[in-house]
């Protein structure tokens, strides 16, 4: 790469906008209260500095929150007309928009994702989910689940750290629209935006107990899921934890949806629009540092164009700017935690050991914080760990194929099935491939696009149930 005479000056967003407080408390029955658990320390993964202390829940707090949610369900929320519920949801959506800058900066501080993604993707999409579901709240009778579908009751929801506010929106918006009340546990490392969301619920005048937020670690998630007062469990996170949850709720009669890991295939046929395919590959695996369960982490390229495409990809990846998440020019931010960085490092090392060719972007990395250079493994074989296990980081595994049938066979040869991508200029091939790919979402000539109207969910070890769209309502209705 030629040294540029033009270095963009840093353009950091001010962290003052986040209105960061030294401590945050949990939200139960419409009030902020101290939890009985050991306080969590939330740190900034880009600097390793502590951001805030967050009180965490104990098992008795879980019990308290579930009882508050039950009261709210029985007394107000489930009996309220749908059009009244819609007003609250619209209000919440607008408040998310109004406080969008604060939420975006806070999300980037807490999670490490670049501000341009929290600002342009996470927060607007979160607001869009509330808007979309507000529209459903008074139209549930027309959703195809009978004339008067009933809510389930109290939803226990556990969400991951990769899209803290967005996953909260995916969970809470449909639950409330359908008349359920919720107890939500945000991830241990990223609880802050969920607690600002609790302020938004207060601002919106939401009746006490309808939304309860309990920060905590895995044990609190387990207690919530196992609580007998919970009627519905929704979880997004790792496949391993998903299996534990499935075991824990088995036989209890609770409804369950799981959105778990993935190892998506991004298939590039030889007639693809190459420059845009390169963009889609970059977006597929380096968006949100690769912390995306539907990331296009396995690139399947037709052999006849593999060299050309890989060369273009390397040139493009070199231009990705890795660094301060609050800098508006940053493309790839920080890995969320030291633990996650260690996992990525370990899996990448297994790629070397098994004989794949590692290529790393020469971009400079900050000296402090948890960062991992964008990495592309070529010469990857289907049997290698980096082709089978979810890495959940900015690491792409490149495999090749010769015929379309081989591409489908390789793409489907995974225990997961959350998403897939197809790149070709031929419309009939898109339809042919989409019919054969076992994945919840198949993107054609694009990747990682999300919309509240489109159902999202998995096959096999990627979980079951759908979120978003009309199909997503089913998970929160007694049908």
């Amino acid at each position, binding site marked *: 790469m030629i040294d540029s005479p*033009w270095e963009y000056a840093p353009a950091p967003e001010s962290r003052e906008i986040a209105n960061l407080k030294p401590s945050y408390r949990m939200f139960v029955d419409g009030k902020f209260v101290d939890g009985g658990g050991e306080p969590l320390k939330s740190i900034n993964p880009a600097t390793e500095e502590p951001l805030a202390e967050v009180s965490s829940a104990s098992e008795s707090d879980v019990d308290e929150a579930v009882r508050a949610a039950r009261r709210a369900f029985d007394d107000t929320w489930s009996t309220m007309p749908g059009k009244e519920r819609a007003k609250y949801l619209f209000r919440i959506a607008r408040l998310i928009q109004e406080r969008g800058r604060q939420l975006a900066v806070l999300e980037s501080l807490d999670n490490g994702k670049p501000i341009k993604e929290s600002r342009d993707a996470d927060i607007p999409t979160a607001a869009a989910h509330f808007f979309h579901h507000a529209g459903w709240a008074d139209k549930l009778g027309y959703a195809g689940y009978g004339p008067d579908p009933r809510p389930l009751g109290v939803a226990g929801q556990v969400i991951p750290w990769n899209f803290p506010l967005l996953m909260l929106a995916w969970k809470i918006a449909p639950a409330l629209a359908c008349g359920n009340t919720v107890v939500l546990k945000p991830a241990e490392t990223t609880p802050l935006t969920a607690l600002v969301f609790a302020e938004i619920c207060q601002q919106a005048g939401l009746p006490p107990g309808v939304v309860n937020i309990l920060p905590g670690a895995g044990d609190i998630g387990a207690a919530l899921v196992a609580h007998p007062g919970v009627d519905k469990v929704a979880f997004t996170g790792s496949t391993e934890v998903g299996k534990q949850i499935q075991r824990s709720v088995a036989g209890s009669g609770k409804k369950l949806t799981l959105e778990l890991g993935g190892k998506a295939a991004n298939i590039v046929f030889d007639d693809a629009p190459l420059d845009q*395919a390169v963009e889609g590959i970059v977006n597929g695996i380096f968006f949100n540092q690769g912390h995306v369960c539907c990331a296009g982490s396995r690139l399947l390229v037709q052999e006849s164009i593999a060299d050309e495409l890989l060369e273009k990809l390397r040139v493009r990846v070199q231009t990705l700017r890795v660094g301060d998440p609050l800098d508006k020019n940053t493309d790839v931010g920080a890995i969320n935690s030291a633990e996650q960085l260690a996992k990525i490092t370990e899996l990448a090392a297994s790629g070397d050991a098994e004989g794949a060719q590692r290529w790393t972007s020469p971009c400079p990395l900050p000296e402090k914080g948890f960062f991992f250079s964008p990495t592309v493994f070529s010469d990857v074989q289907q049997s290698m760990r980096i082709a089978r296990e979810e890495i959940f980081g900015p690491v792409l595994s490149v495999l090749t194929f010769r015929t379309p049938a081989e591409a489908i066979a390789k793409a489907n040869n995974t225990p997961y099935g959350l998403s897939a991508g197809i790149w070709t200029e031929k419309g009939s091939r898109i339809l042919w491939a989409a019919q054969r790919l076992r994945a919840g979402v198949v993107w054609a000539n694009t990747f990682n696009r999300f919309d509240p109207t489109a159902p999202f969910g998995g096959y096999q070890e990627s979980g079951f149930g759908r979120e978003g769209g009309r199909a997503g309502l089913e998970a929160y209705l007694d049908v």
Partner: protein
Amino acid sequence: MAQSPPLSKLTELAVSELADAIRDDRSLRRFLHGLPGVDQVGLEQRAAGLATRSIKKAAKRWAIDTAISVIDLTTLEGADTEGKVRALCAKARHPDPERPDTPQVAAVCVYSDMAATAVRALDGTDIQVASVATAFPSGRSALAVKLADVEYAVAAGADEIDMVIDRGAFLAGRYGQVFEEIQAVKAACGDAHLKVILETGELATYDNVRRASWLALLAGGDFIKTSTGKVSPAATLPVTHLMLQVVRDWRDSTGQLRGVKPAGGIRNTKDAIRYLVAVHEVAGPEWLTPKLFRFGASSLLGDLLMQRRTQLDGHYSGPDYVAVD
């Protein structure tokens, strides 16, 4: 994955492939239609994404000076007079007389009958004289007339010729005709540099823009230029992105460097910086020079000078402090 071949070998390989491409009309068509497609949604998304780069402080000052130094200061009106051209040349020499460190523009671009005036007015400077020729802007004339137009401009001392392609022939699929015309104009240019105007607004699809860009480079164009400025839409960010990809691909397969010139509709500093970001990140930093990148613009310079003063003085002074020429 096999290792990529060394560049020298790749270049030879590609050049022989390209020689085959221009053997006859049919092979030219096969080659142009064999280029990878362009996905409209993806291209426009990428262009919009890059346009949000935040360029401030030192980076912005550098961008403003670079933008000034790559301008082809242009007047292409039926009402052009010698006085108007001389005024433009004076501004090209001293864009901001109160701040002598302001860079000069790259060229002054005029109609061929004004080339001699511009040459005289710019005598003793490094500023190039660019002349549009070939029955600009429609290109609707006999080849002999177009060539005579070019020869007239070159004889008047023009350093650069901006030609228009025959869009009718291109859209009708007569690629060979367009190719030969560009080649003939290139020959008539002598030492003058040739910029080939594709008039992308009339080519309708991005696939066509990519084909026309390759065609112009195969025929020997030194620059590919988006528009005459007389057709809407003129230059757009996605089209310029695409053309920057083409010159980068051309460099990768031949080792030769060719330039890109968006023209028409780029009026303010913010837009100009967005284009420079695209040059920087799509083609590469080595394209950030007047040798390989130009803006075809008339009113852009005024805004750049105002923004330059704002950056240096710390406050905005207003359009009355910058010459209107």
